[in-house]
């Protein structure tokens, strides 16, 4: 296995569209890195560039300490699993697994030995004579993994490998892949559009949007300290609630003036100093669904009307329309106890111990925690 680096990689197509812009990412030897983002964000392009199926417009691709831009896919020795598996339909499972070895010029005996090894690991032994068309989705997925494993590659590239499976199977195979990666200590780049998959699978997660890397980090860091509005909205299910405010000087220092109410800012010198340059500026305030609570009092503080309630069994997601959050429908994660009805007006309690502040252009200004405090009249 080897470490991988994307160094200032850009990919422009002849029609002028940019799939990747100055993409920098280092994946350590034996690491499972997840690339996540909405469709068209450049995550699959980055895998294709790495695999040698496409050439970057500029930048360097490094495998170990070797530049691989000019190597053929074969010379790169990377294995890839495709979204629709791309199993050769005319070949048996055995022939599919044997194909990369045959291309590498291994002897018949060596091929048989390796194929049977991998078939054993992935429990494919009884299907070796079948054609891909005679297998279930989960079995095909395992054959695709097997075809990658059998080559003993430098790294595994997985392009949305679970998106064709049903939800239950997806969870099962996801944990199988993670276990396999740990067991083999394999360098693995895993592409997905599903942020839940990214959060549960990745040692580190890289978020992409419109061809640009937004943030790289461990899942909890992305959740707790999103680098910008896109990451805040994309990571987490549902995403972060965002509403506009203005940084203003109050009696005891700076406050966040929202429409109809104000939120306190920690009084410590560091935070005050950090926000001071933004005094008077319009900003976005972010709070996770678990940071919104529904109160009975509509007299003081912000209010909203309930537009929809999703019952998850152990908790409810309550969607709220509020005049102070005109851009976005808010979402609160609440327990099952209190009776709630659509259309009802409720008071909103914002947990000020976990607020996020973003610049109008999207970059994060601060993430802070402070003891819960009341609203400033």
């Amino acid at each position, binding site marked *: 296995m080897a470490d991988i680096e994307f160094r200032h990689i850009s990919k422009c197509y002849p029609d002028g569209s940019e799939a990747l812009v100055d993409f920098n990412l280092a994946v350590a030897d034996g690491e499972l890195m997840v690339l996540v983002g909405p469709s068209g964000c450049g995550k699959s392009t980055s895998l294709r560039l790495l695999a040698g199926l496409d050439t970057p417009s500029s930048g360097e691709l490094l495998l170990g300490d070797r530049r691989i831009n000019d190597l053929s896919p*074969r010379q790169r020795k990377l294995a*890839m699993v*495709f979204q629709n598996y791309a199993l050769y339909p005319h070949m048996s499972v055995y022939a599919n697994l044997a194909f990369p070895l045959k291309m590498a010029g291994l002897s018949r005996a060596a091929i048989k030995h390796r194929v049977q090894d991998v078939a054993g690991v992935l429990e494919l032994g009884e299907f070796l004579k079948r054609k891909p068309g005679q297998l279930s989705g989960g079995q095909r997925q395992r054959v695709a993994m097997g075809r990658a494993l059998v080559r003993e590659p430098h790294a595994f590239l997985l392009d949305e490998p679970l998106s064709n499976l049903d939800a239950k199977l997806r969870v099962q195979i996801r944990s199988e892949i993670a276990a396999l990666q740990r067991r083999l200590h394999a360098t693995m780049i895993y592409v997905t559009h599903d942020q839940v998959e990214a959060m549960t699978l990745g040692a580190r997660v890289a978020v992409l949007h419109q061809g640009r890397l937004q943030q790289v980090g461990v899942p909890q860091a992305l959740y707790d300290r999103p680098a910008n509005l896109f990451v805040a909205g994309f990571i987490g299910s549902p995403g972060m609630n965002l509403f506009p405010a203005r940084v203003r000087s109050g009696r005891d220092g700076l406050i966040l003036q929202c429409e109809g109410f104000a939120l306190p800012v920690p009084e410590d010198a560091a935070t005050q100093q950090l926000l001071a340059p933004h005094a008077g500026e319009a900003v976005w305030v972010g709070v996770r669904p678990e940071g919104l609570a529904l109160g009975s009092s509509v007299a003081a503080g912000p209010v909203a009307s309930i537009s929809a309630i999703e019952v998850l069994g152990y908790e409810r997601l309550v969607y709220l329309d509020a005049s102070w959050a005109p851009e976005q429908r808010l979402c609160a994660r609440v327990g099952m106890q209190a009776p709630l009805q659509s259309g009802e007006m409720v008071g909103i309690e914002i947990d000020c111990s976990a607020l996020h502040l973003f610049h109008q252009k999207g970059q994060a200004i601060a993430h802070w925690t402070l003891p819960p405090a009341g609203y400033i009249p």
Partner: protein
Amino acid sequence: MVSIWRACAYLLLLAAALLFFAPAAFMLIGSLKPDAQVLAEAGRLQAFLPGDISLQNYHDVFVRVAFGRYLGNSLFITVCVVVFGLLVNALAGYALARLEWRGRRLLLAAILAILIIPLEAIAVPLFYELSLLGWRDSYLVQIAPFIANAFSVYLFYSFFLGLPREFEDAARIDGAGSLRIFFYIIVPNSRPAFATVAILTFLTQWSAFLWPLLVTSSERVRPLPLAIANFYTLPPLQWGDIFAFGSMMVAPVLMVFLLLQRWFVRGIAATGLKD
């Protein structure tokens, strides 16, 4: 009401099928009857009923002309054109559909333009060109000009465009080069296209008349269509013999069609030629 309409439709279809089948049946049955009987029954229903059946006419054909020689010539020429044609045109179609190279679009446009030029339009200049090469009255002159075929290239091209690219991507990552991808992955998954081109090329080549007439002069290399034309004018005029000749000439075409029919129908549907 619906069933009456359906019955009418079936009757109409049956009548049409009989109409198309009748000449072939007349030829096949006539080839088994004595000449006098063929003439006497022409235009009557008896022509389609077996009467005094024998293989005498077939025997006569072999006695009167070198049928075996012509059959061998036709088979050799046609098989060569089909086999080399499949290889050359499929490779060209693949290069146009999948590989990136300078001038690809221009060549594709040229191939589309060539599609509409009939052989009759270029027969004379082609004849001069090949005469200069000294190829006249040979197998080569009947094979070489027909191996590369614009229609076949285009058919392969459009079929390959429809194949999922992931197979090739996967094979490339598995370590295969373009040629190996073509032979290991593309060819086995393109049987409908290969069957379609094989049948269409076989039919065209098997019934080629004008070109062999222009470029050949000896029995040694002449194919069946020229031979049957001569056979008509060979006295005495024997309809039974002519039918036997015709039946033997059609048999290989039927065999090829029956062999590849399963893929042919899919090929026609898959390439969008049928609408």
